[in-house]
């Protein structure tokens, strides 16, 4: 037996943990396989699900008894990936010598840098024309699409979370991964792994889930409105640059706590609009791609059995669903309102694009309209509320992070 432990400590580790943890571990290994498979098949968002699935699979397989860095006299079940429990500077330095992902985790997750890098990349691929060309319509649709962010907060309080945790969970309704990551790191570090994982899992199924909501709430005759009578105003690069600089400055002045998010997003937009090709390549191909890969992989590596058996996990799964469901319903109600105000010229489906999962929700709106009427080309009109949704989500996250700390 002792020889077996020495040769295959990973196998023996199953007998060194409580039964429910061992079962959860096996289930998570299969969940990891599922994430990779459905990511590969494009059912789930492959950019995140493939690295996350690999992380979930391998971290739950690669457990073994090892010295505890916090208390070296003890042994604990751990992996060679990273240790999220280290706190002091000494422990961090020691952990970096042992765990291969520790440097990335310590230097980019603890301070929210990873969320800001993703946001910078999103800024660099964001086309502001549709938003600035029709700001009133875009912003009018983005506000009701925050209904989930608004109503999930009291529901989370009712389910027993404290205000900081509830605010972090409520940001799932904004459907913007980096915001959820930023808010949970600022407000509920103890829950940031389950909140982020639940959020990214739901965001990856928005593309396949929201069409059902649309079909349930919007009759065919409304879905097929083609919006041919609407025009898109051309916007100059100068206007987009001025908007990014002024808005970024004003929002940072109002909400200094969330200034890193605003700076990252508007820096990305300014890089795009100033057409410095080398920065554009760096922000999109390197920063966004690299940070998305490590974000998915490290979140997967943090999803170990002890996180899943955490009693709050089931509540988080319910709240994540509630948040995105309410935001989707709010978005469609906003869509109906503008459809009615425009006397039927605006397709109500563009309302759901106010849920700021760029560009998935805009694509969903377009796909559902196109399925009913092949001539309906609403994607450009849906991109306006989609971008407005990113800005309102950043604002509501900033307000939550600022105000909830004053409670």
């Amino acid at each position, binding site marked *: 037996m002792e020889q077996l432990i020495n040769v295959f400590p990973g196998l023996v580790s199953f007998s060194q943990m409580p039964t429910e943890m061992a079962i959860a571990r096996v289930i998570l290994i299969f969940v990891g396989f599922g994430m990779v498979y459905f990511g590969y098949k494009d059912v789930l968002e492959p950019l995140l699900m493939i690295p996350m699935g690999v992380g979930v699979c391998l971290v739950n397989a690669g457990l073994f008894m090892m010295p505890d860095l916090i208390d070296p006299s003890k042994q604990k079940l751990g992996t060679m990936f990273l240790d999220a429990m280290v706190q002091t500077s000494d422990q961090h330095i020691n952990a970096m010598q042992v765990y291969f992902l520790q440097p990335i985790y310590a230097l980019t997750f603890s301070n929210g840098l990873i969320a800001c890098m993703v946001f910078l990349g999103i800024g660099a691929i964001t086309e502001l024309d549709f938003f600035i060309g029709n700001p009133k319509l875009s912003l009018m649709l983005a506000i009701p699409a925050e209904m989930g962010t608004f109503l999930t907060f009291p529901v989370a309080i009712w389910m027993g979370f404290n205000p900081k945790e509830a605010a972090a969970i409520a940001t799932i309704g904004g459907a913007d991964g980096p915001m959820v990551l930023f808010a949970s790191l600022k407000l509920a570090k103890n829950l940031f792994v389950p909140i982020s994982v639940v959020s990214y899992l739901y965001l990856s199924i928005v593309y396949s889930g929201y069409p059902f909501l649309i079909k349930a709430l919007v009759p065919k005759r409304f879905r097929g409105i083609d919006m041919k009578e609407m025009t898109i105003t051309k916007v100059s690069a100068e206007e987009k640059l001025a908007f990014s600089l002024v808005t970024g400055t004003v*929002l940072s002045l109002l909400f200094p706590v969330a200034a890193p998010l605003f700076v990252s997003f508007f820096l990305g937009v300014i890089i795009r609009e100033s057409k410095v090709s080398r920065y554009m390549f760096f922000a999109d191909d390197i920063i966004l791609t690299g940070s998305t890969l490590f974000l998915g992989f490290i979140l997967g590596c943090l999803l170990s059995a002890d996180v899943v058996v955490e009693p709050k996990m089931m509540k988080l799964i319910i709240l994540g669903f509630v948040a995105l469901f309410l935001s989707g319903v709010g978005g469609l109600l906003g869509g109906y309102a503008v459809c009615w105000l425009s006397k039927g010229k605006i397709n109500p489906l563009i309302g759901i694009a106010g849920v700021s999962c760029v560009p998935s929700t805009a694509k969903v709106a377009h796909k559902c309209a196109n399925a009913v009427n092949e001539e309906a080309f609403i994607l450009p009109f849906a991109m306006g509320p989609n971008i407005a949704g990113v800005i309102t989500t950043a604002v509501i996250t900033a307000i939550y992070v600022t105000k909830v700390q004053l409670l």
Partner: protein
Amino acid sequence: MGVWDAFKFALNVYMLTTAITILVWVMIVIIGKFTKKG
């Protein structure tokens, strides 16, 4: 914090978000007046 207090707090956050959103719209309109059109 009770559920009713939580609702009032969230409503407050939502209204403030709406106000900031209107401010963003006003900024776009003002910037549009001072920059050349595309």
